[in-house]
């Protein structure tokens, strides 16, 4: 282990350049957070429209609008993070298909096409059948759009903390969490108790599952590699400890508690607070997990 080695050799780096700093910062956090909402709302809309087709028709328009807005926020932050943002078109004209960045860009473009089509048929043509048909394709494409960032993190081989398939599961859970939270806020009081309970359960179980996974990473992650031990020290008494636990509490623990209380009391008000808490906490949680592996010196 790193510390044993240091103690044994008493080795100190006395001359070297500093760390490269955080290369993927809050802009990439915004990217992941907005994508979770943009695809998550499509998953939840599909589920509700299949299960409650008679009661839930009014969510079609807000769902697709939210998806369009947040996917474009995701794309905006993706592009502005590039140091040469005006060369973004190179991804399409000089694509390297082994890169998850390329694959993600192509998938996201296809997904944008589908959700724009859904909006067109619903708003311009008043064709709900076509909307629903496109929604099914949208769900199929939303899965890899949600997952490609996990693939990118897995390709970031220098960062041992990010492993496949753990990150892919976290991405899906983030989408379900963000999608259900957004739908709770969108629906107002128009949803029936049954639908509210469904949304509360999706939110609660997503939060519970994501929390368990983070805790397992915290406990068992150090058994994977020396780099993971050193990385997790930043959240185990290190400079990101407060932010990490703040994220876990706001994103997962508070929503879980409020979901239980809201189901028990049939309080939609508490569910809305849980939704806001989950969305805010998700940003913090994602940010910490994105940043800490970058604090480790590679050389």
């Amino acid at each position: 282990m790193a510390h044993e080695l240091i103690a044994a050799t008493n080795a100190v780096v006395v001359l070297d350049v500093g760390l490269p700093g955080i290369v993927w910062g809050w802009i990439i956090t915004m990217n992941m957070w907005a994508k979770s909402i943009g695809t998550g709302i499509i998953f939840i809309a599909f589920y509700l429209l299949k299960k409650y087709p008679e009661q839930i028709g009014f969510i079609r328009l807000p769902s697709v609008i939210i998806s369009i807005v947040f996917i474009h926020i995701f794309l905006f932050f993706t592009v502005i993070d590039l140091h040469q943002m005006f060369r973004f078109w190179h991804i399409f004209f000089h694509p390297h298909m082994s890169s998850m960045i390329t694959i993600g860009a192509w998938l996201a473009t296809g997904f944008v096409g589908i959700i724009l089509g859904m909006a067109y048929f619903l708003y311009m043509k008043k064709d709900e059948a076509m909307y629903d048909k496109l929604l099914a394709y949208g769900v199929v494409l939303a899965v890899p759009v949600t997952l490609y960032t996990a693939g990118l993190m897995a390709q970031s081989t220098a960062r041992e903390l990010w492993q496949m398939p753990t990150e892919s599961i976290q991405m899906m859970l983030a989408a379900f969490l963000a999608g259900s939270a957004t739908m709770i806020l969108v629906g107002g009081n128009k949803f029936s108790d049954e639908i509210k309970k469904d949304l509360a359960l999706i939110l609660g179980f997503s939060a519970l599952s994501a929390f368990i996974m983070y805790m397992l990473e915290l406990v068992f992650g150090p058994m994977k590699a020396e780099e993971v031990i050193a990385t997790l020290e930043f959240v185990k008494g290190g400079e990101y400890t407060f932010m990490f636990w703040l994220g876990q509490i706001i994103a997962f623990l508070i929503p879980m508690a409020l979901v239980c209380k809201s189901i028990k009391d049939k309080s939609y008000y508490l569910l809305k607070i849980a939704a806001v808490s989950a969305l805010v906490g998700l940003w913090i949680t994602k940010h910490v997990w994105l940043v800490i592996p970058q604090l480790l010196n590679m050389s």
Partner: protein
Amino acid sequence: MQLGFLVDLRLCMGCKGCEIACKVENEVPLSTWRLRVKYVDVGSFPETKRTFTPLRCNHCANAPCERICPVSALHYIENGIVNIDKERCIGCAGCIMACPYGAIYIDPITQTADKCTYCAHRIASAMMPSCVVACPVEANIFGDLDDPMSNISKYIQEHQGNVQVRKPEKGTDPHHYYVGGGNVTLNPLASFRAEGHSLFNNLTHLPVGGHH
């Protein structure tokens, strides 16, 4: 042809001639390095020793930076060098995230990724990389790994059992070898690093450039 590098750490005396030669040859901007020499002090007084480790791109046969680059700006050339096309690079920094050796940086002037290319432009003109030429003790050995009669191949053969690569567990198959290296010299986690402090001055963070 598979070009490779070998540094005999037993010979290196930390003069940083290679660092400067690289800077001059490749016009590497201030605060950025394609090649640098890390000093690590080992032991407690009076039993102390200073080690020197030149660090550069490893030109891996299974390069994560090449794989993650979305536009093939990082690409192999036929002699095994992982080269970079700065005109094509979009500055996504994926390569920086993927490289386990911290060998890639964003050039603050061009706002594109950059790294050691084994002086590919010099090799194209049948010249040795500038760091090889500058080394006063011939600690840098460069040549064709596919040719058993090349200096580097012979050196590797002669020093069987004492030839190392950095982070072999990553499976990147580096084409950059060390002789006389050890955990302290090759494993960044094996030594304590006081952030911001160095032997000669108070270095600050390496700027990544752009809007970050």
